[in-house]
């Protein structure tokens, strides 16, 4: 019985991230539009886009290989799995131990790996631009991310997200400088990873500035739909990661029952909304930076992560 419940909870989470992701994207767009004194498209617009894309035929470049066609599904699947391994409304779900934070980062890494390959597949220069810039950013973002993991894991004594989250609500966290640093670093990485302003502009189509868009330039129809969906799930993933690591309040744990789940769900949605608003505001107030400023941006994140770890030792030793 517990097993079935566990399965259900897990399945629910998978469904949740799948459904909530486009909504979040739509929400952020809406908020931005509002702040720009535009009406903007409806919050549900992303769903409509996805629907339409899926119905369309795929226009495939003549020399596209099988890899090009497989990649979208792969990316979607990997991102989906990764996203559903991050506690959203409840921690300690059935399979949450199947992959810890490091594994989740690596999963996102493999999604990026294949997307970058797809960018190179057709052999146009845009794909090349996109891929090469993407891997450059990733090669800094991933280590930064791992260095953020260190202080968290060391504080909580675990890399298991559920355990970390449970530890974070527990009283013996205290207020720690290193956690603050880690938070800032994580936000910076999240922005970079999701290609938001100031790193990249999700809504640009100016060749020289685009990164993510350049890679997927050749995609159309259902393939594009998969990728868009994956992208928005990634955004969701990072927001829920921030949520469960740094404000894990209201988070239910496995088997607490429907009521707790409901509380968790609402609180989760609340966090998402807050995160979305903040993101929108942030995107409005900063300007996009040159591609070769990005390394400095991420380098800063990396340093923050390392600093967090070192400070941690100091505070521990005190």
């Amino acid at each position, binding site marked *: 019985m517990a097993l079935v419940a566990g399965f259900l909870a897990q399945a629910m989470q998978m469904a949740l991230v799948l459904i909530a992701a486009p909504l979040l994207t739509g929400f952020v767009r809406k908020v931005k539009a509002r702040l720009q004194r535009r009406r903007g498209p409806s919050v549900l617009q992303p769903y409509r886009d996805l629907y339409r894309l899926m119905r369309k035929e795929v226009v495939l470049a003549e*020399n596209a290989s099988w890899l090009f066609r497989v990649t979208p599904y792969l990316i*979607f699947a990997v991102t989906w799995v990764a996203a559903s391994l991050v506690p959203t409304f409840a921690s300690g779900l059935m399979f949450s131990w*199947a992959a810890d934070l490091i594994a989740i980062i690596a999963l996102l890494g493999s999604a990026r790996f294949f997307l970058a390959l797809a960018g190179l597949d057709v*052999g146009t220069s845009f794909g090349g631009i996109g891929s*090469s810039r993407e891997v450059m950013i990733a090669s800094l973002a991933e280590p930064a991310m791992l260095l953020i993991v260190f202080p968290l894991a060391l504080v909580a004594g675990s890399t298991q997200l559920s*355990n970390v989250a449970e530890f974070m609500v527990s009283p013996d966290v205290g207020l720690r400088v290193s956690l603050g640093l880690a938070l800032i670093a994580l936000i910076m990485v999240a922005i970079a990873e999701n290609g938001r302003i100031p790193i990249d502009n999700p809504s640009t189509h100016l060749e020289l500035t685009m990164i993510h868009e350049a890679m997927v330039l050749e995609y159309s129809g*259902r393939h594009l739909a998969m990728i868009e969906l994956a992208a928005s799930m990634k955004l969701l993933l990072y927001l829920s990661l921030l949520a469960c690591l740094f404000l894990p309040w209201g988070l239910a744990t496995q088997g607490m029952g429907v009521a707790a789940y409901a509380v968790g769900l609402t609180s989760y949605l609340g966090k998402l909304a807050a995160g979305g608003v903040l993101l929108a505001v942030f995107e409005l107030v900063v300007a996009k930076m040159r591609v070769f400023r990005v390394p400095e941006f991420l380098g800063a994140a990396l340093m923050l992560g390392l600093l967090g770890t070192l400070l941690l030792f100091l505070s521990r030793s005190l």
Partner: protein
Amino acid sequence: MQLVAVALACVAVLLGAAVLAVAVSARRVASTVVYGACLAASSIALAAALVHFAGTSPVTLTLPLGLPWLGAHFRLDALAALFLAVVNLGGASASLYALGYGKHEPLPGRVLPFFPAFLAGMNLVVLADDAFTFLLCWEFMSLASWALVMAHHRVEDNVRAAFIYLVMASFGTLALLLAFGVLAGPDGAYGFAAIREGVQTPLENTLVLALVLIGAGSKAGLVPLHVWLPLAHPAAPSHVSALMSGVMTKVAVYAFVRVAFDLLDGSDWWQSMVVLFIGGGTAALGVLYALMQHDLKRLLAYHTVENIGIIYIGLGLALAFQANGMMAATALALTAALFHVFNHSLFKSLLFFGAGAVLTATGQRDMEALGGLIRRMPYTSFAFLVGCAAISALPPLNGFASEWLTFQAILQSPDLPQWGLKFMVPAVGGLLALSAALAAACFVKAFGITFLGRPRSHAAETAREVDRFSLTAMFGLAGLCLLAGILPGFVIDALAPVTLSLVGERMPAQADVAWLSIVPIAEARSSYNGLLVFVFVAFSASFAAYIIHRFASHALRRAPAWDCGFPEPSVRTQYTAGSFAQPIRRVFGTLIFRAREHVDMPPPGDSRPARFHVDLRDLVWEVLYLPVAAIVNSTATRLNHFQFLTIRRYLGLVFLALVTLLLVLAIWL
């Protein structure tokens, strides 16, 4: 059943094959016969090694060879068995691959005799149980591989590579020789058994460890002793490159492990800091060098450097924990290192096989002349892709499993008492993460430029898929990469006897963890389940594909790629290896390679093409090796005058010697 005897019999077969090869190398069938023999022998030896894992009591054997009063001692214990398995797995797959690949060899007479000898040498090193036998086989291994590097000796670069290789190799051998000299003591107790009993003073301990780090490191390719590696490995025929990169470097790691964990009794914590530092630096520098390469095989060779760095990080951690008596963590770190040894031997062989296939199909190693091969050689490209994913540490493949374990070991560092280690280990972890990420970038480049995009040369356009043997070898290894990735628990348990015999501690048994997931320390700390991740991904991917194709459109139209308004863009407009690496070069290169970009833009009206070129400098080479060469050179020139003196002057020398000696007698006696 004496397993060690079986292994030695296999070695004898290999040597016999080598001798046979000398005789028959001219015939057509030669390569089939020789490689067949190698395949058989390695498989049997592999079987022997695996059987030994079942019953792990060491078996020894002494032959009346080598040092007369000592005899040649051979011993098969857990550690030896592990590396014997690695060696022969690589050997068997290389032989299988060569059954097809070897047919294309223009000069079989220069490859066939040395290939089995090379295999034999590596087997013997692993089995040797006394210093003399060990070093003899060690140097024999270098010699055989030198001959193989020399196989295409009419190419200038190969000769140069072979020269640098053998000099570095014997430099390393001399270092090991000195190390064993210290261990054996003045009256020459060269048997490992005797050495194990012996006790070293701290000074001796440090000396030995340093010398072994140099000796084994120069073969494994630790920075700054790596310079020969990217020259020599690509120069050899590809199946040999696979052996050198995938297996021989592991034999070097074996030497380090054998001495540092088995022969030496314990070490000091600051020593481990040195190892960690070198390991981290090697990992990061190796991958950065790799990113700058256009030559596919050289790129792979530099990645060997990187992975050796990762392995040494694991070993350094193990030393650090051992020095502080944190045995569980020691076992974890050591297991991580050994696991990575195994993994790297798998995917590095696989990748070199792929490179070899490309080489035979197109005759090209230069990535700038390749491209679009995924359409011409689908199977090769698939296997190569698996290899790329594995070496880039992407889950659920095996590369990730071992690097994940290494990270877990790093996360044990806060319990270390010493501040130096406390601060160093996370930094090394950062380097590890950096090199992992850069490796992914590098293999996007390697695969993308070589196999994707449009063909950049006629050779690439007309490439043909390679023969069945090569494909079998590649797919076999690819399968193993996946298996070891989704079922790491079994590998870890298989490594337990090794860590038990070396540090007397093992990782918790993984077999009885639920759902076949792996747990380094405790469930609560961290766990990972490759199988589940794999299943989830596969399931959800196929689920999505099914839903869409079932309920949404599956229409598809082929159309020209978006040309941005310039029809029929030439293939030159694609991104090249150089341009792909440009952003990363901008970020790291200016500091590490003193990278300088020169643009030669002709003035308006001038019809000559604009030129852009980058010059990179290898600082290690310039700072360390060129000066030495210069010193030797100038000394030689200066001393050379002694060849042209007059007889009177020579007599003067004699006279001087005489007077000096008499003075010595007169004054000091």
